[in-house]
């Protein structure tokens, strides 16, 4: 493999300007993450302290092996929803190490409205379960939730990918031999009771832990009976009488100790063997990424410069370097793991789409995972390209991508507009992990494009109705569209809605991908074969 030769001028005005802009953007990201993780109203902290409960992050710190990394997902989930009342969507999810075993973590956060589930909480937990299921990773649940937000029930209860999906995924995991443990620190009411109920193993803390389908207030309302929480579904009742829970624990610390020991009993999954090399840091400093990424979504940049700051030794074996040059394809290693990279260096044309399809087939033939680095404003449009079959060439790209049996990973580096998002393994395409960068924007098209398209539609409508063409009305249409797009295309909106697994500081991309690839190797490869390529 050849070392990428950087042509980046780190003393240029452009570099300095972008560097300053991105440093500021990342500082804002880190501050938002800090607030979402740690800042809670004092009365909630006091209430937990009075109950003798730890905060979820304190539990995690004791549960995970000391000194091991925790790859946290979607820290800023729900940051644009519910008036900011649900930091991190009221729960923590991620991949960490317990007793030497990679596991997916789901921890309820009782410091936010008693850990009650908002619709986006449910979406985040379902996504964590999906990650565990797809990657065959064991899962540990830290349960402490008041249950679903009753006033929002229609958005979290009935549909296919809502609350019921949690328990469906839990049952499927158990069926496939993917182990699960629940540590019951607080209440697991109604649907929430099924989390420990469907886990292969569970531990419950005496005094604070409780599992029941209906809590004491509901029992009183329904039958008139007055019972305490401990009698109804506490530690001793479940571990001695009902058999719903397995291990009694005297305290939260005790539960964590038992939990770590349970995980230590589990057989280690056999990872499938992937081509591996000795890991090597990139030759070029990842810090220079800040000077590469533009501050304007419309500005293109050289993706090889990005690749050079993510991959081992900045080495890259480029495939078809002279053909379809708006898409850079090639092999590289990340933390030693061999990957096939597809990175946008411009718009997708017929040749770049065909190159993409062919390269993905090569990676599948070679059992090499795929990494997509997105900066795509779309497939080329216009008569010439339609006549050359840009639609069917894009279809080939999607066909090869969807048919891939190797794991796929996506980083939204910059723009992700239109069908380019599909070809480059956007959220809908079952990539194992998808991360975004702070400047990223996503939408069916760019804001300006949409504004002009809708103004054009309005203009035709006015003409058809024989009305006067009023520039003011058209400008109003443009302004409204632009405003809506500005809000909804931002990376923060995207991560709020869980269209990703979290926003990354670009310099952390290499580490996040290293953990993601390692995690993906627990699951066997998918089924080989593709659909019909339209020729």
């Amino acid at each position: 493999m050849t070392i990428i030769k950087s042509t980046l001028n780190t003393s240029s005005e452009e570099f300095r300007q972008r560097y300053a802009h991105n440093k500021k953007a990342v500082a804002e990201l880190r501050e938002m993450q800090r607030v979402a993780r740690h800042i809670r109203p004092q009365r909630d902290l006091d209430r937990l302290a009075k109950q003798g409960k730890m905060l979820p992050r304190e539990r995690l710190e004791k549960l995970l092996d000391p000194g091991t990394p925790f790859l946290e997902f979607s820290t800023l989930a729900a940051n644009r929803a519910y008036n900011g009342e649900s930091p991190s969507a009221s729960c923590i999810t991620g991949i960490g190490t317990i007793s030497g075993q990679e596991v997916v973590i789901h921890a309820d956060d009782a410091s936010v409205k008693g850990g009650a589930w908002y619709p986006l909480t449910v979406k985040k937990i379902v996504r964590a379960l999906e990650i565990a299921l797809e990657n065959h990773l064991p899962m540990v649940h830290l349960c402490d939730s008041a249950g679903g937000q009753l006033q929002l029930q229609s958005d979290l209860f009935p549909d296919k990918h809502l609350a019921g999906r949690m328990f469906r995924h839990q049952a499927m995991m158990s069926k496939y031999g993917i182990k699960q443990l629940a540590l019951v620190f607080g209440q697991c009411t109604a649907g929430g009771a099924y989390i420990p109920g469907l886990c292969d193993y569970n531990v419950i803390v005496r005094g604070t832990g409780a599992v029941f389908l209906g809590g004491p207030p509901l029992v009183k309302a329904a039958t008139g009976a007055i019972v305490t929480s401990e009698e109804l579904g506490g530690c001793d009742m479940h571990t001695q009488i009902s058999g719903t829970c397995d291990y009694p624990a005297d305290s939260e610390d005790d539960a964590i100790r038992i939990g770590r020991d349970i995980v230590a009993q589990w057989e280690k999954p056999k990872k499938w063997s992937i081509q591996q090399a000795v890991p090597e840091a990139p030759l070029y400093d990842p810090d220079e990424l800040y000077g590469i990424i533009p501050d304007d979504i419309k500005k293109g940049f050289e993706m090889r410069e990005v690749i050079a700051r993510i991959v081992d030794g900045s080495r890259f074996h480029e495939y078809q370097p002279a053909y379809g040059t708006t898409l850079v394809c090639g092999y590289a290693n990340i933390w030693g793991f061999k990957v096939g990279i597809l990175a946008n260096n411009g718009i997708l044309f017929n040749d770049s789409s065909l190159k993409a399809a062919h390269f993905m087939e090569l990676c599948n033939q070679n059992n090499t995972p795929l990494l997509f680095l997105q900066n795509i404003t779309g497939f080329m449009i216009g008569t010439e390209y339609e006549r050359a079959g840009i639609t069917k060439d894009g279809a080939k790209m999607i066909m090869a991508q969807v048919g891939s049996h190797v794991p796929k990973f996506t980083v939204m580096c910059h723009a992700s507009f239109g069908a380019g998002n599909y070809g480059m393994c956007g959220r809908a395409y079952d990539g194992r992990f998808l991360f975004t960068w702070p400047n990223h924007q996503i939408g069916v098209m760019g804001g300006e494009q949409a504004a002009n398209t809708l103004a054009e539609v309005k203009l035709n409508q006015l003409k058809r109705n024989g009305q006067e063409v009023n520039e003011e009305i058209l400008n109003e249409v443009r302004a409204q569209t632009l405003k809506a797009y500005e809000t909804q295309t931002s990376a923060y909106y995207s991560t709020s809605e869980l269209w990703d697994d979290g926003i990354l500081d670009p310099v952390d991309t290499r580490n996040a991908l290293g953990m993601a690839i390692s995690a993906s190797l627990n699951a066997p490869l998918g089924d080989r074969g593709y659909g019909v390529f339209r020729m």
Partner: protein
Amino acid sequence: MSYEMLLNEQDISLDILARRPDLKIKSGDSTYTVFEMPSDGAEFEIEVDGELYSGYRYVSGDEVYVRIGTRTFIVGLPQASLRAHSQGKTGDALHADMPGTVISLHTEVGAEVKAGDKLITIESMKLQVGLVAPRDGVVEAIHVPAETAFDRGALLISLAPLAAPEAAPAKS
């Protein structure tokens, strides 16, 4: 004649000035006279500008590991295709690879430019791309002004042709 090679993974270029009686090599501004003692094993002795060095050579695939004194060098050939790409296209003109609009010009007619200087920014499908000078030269003409649309293949900027090299003296 110039040779491109990789030394410890960095591109270098060498000129061979003479092969006989001794090998004369020019690299950058320096010229070296080199003579290698005949040997049939991995060990060899080489004389550079009158000084004798002993070394050890090991060939692995496309790469040659050479140890001279206490230093080890890795010598190889660069991938021609990658080099051609990184250096961009050569020629006198910048053509449009795709239809689009000129956003801004960063040069003017008569300006001297260096290879790699950004000359023009174009936009197509809401993506702005800067096009750079293929070689050192002087801007001869700008064919599409700012804020003007162009078709694929349109000539955007042309550079004045280089002065023809002086004709070699005829052999007598």
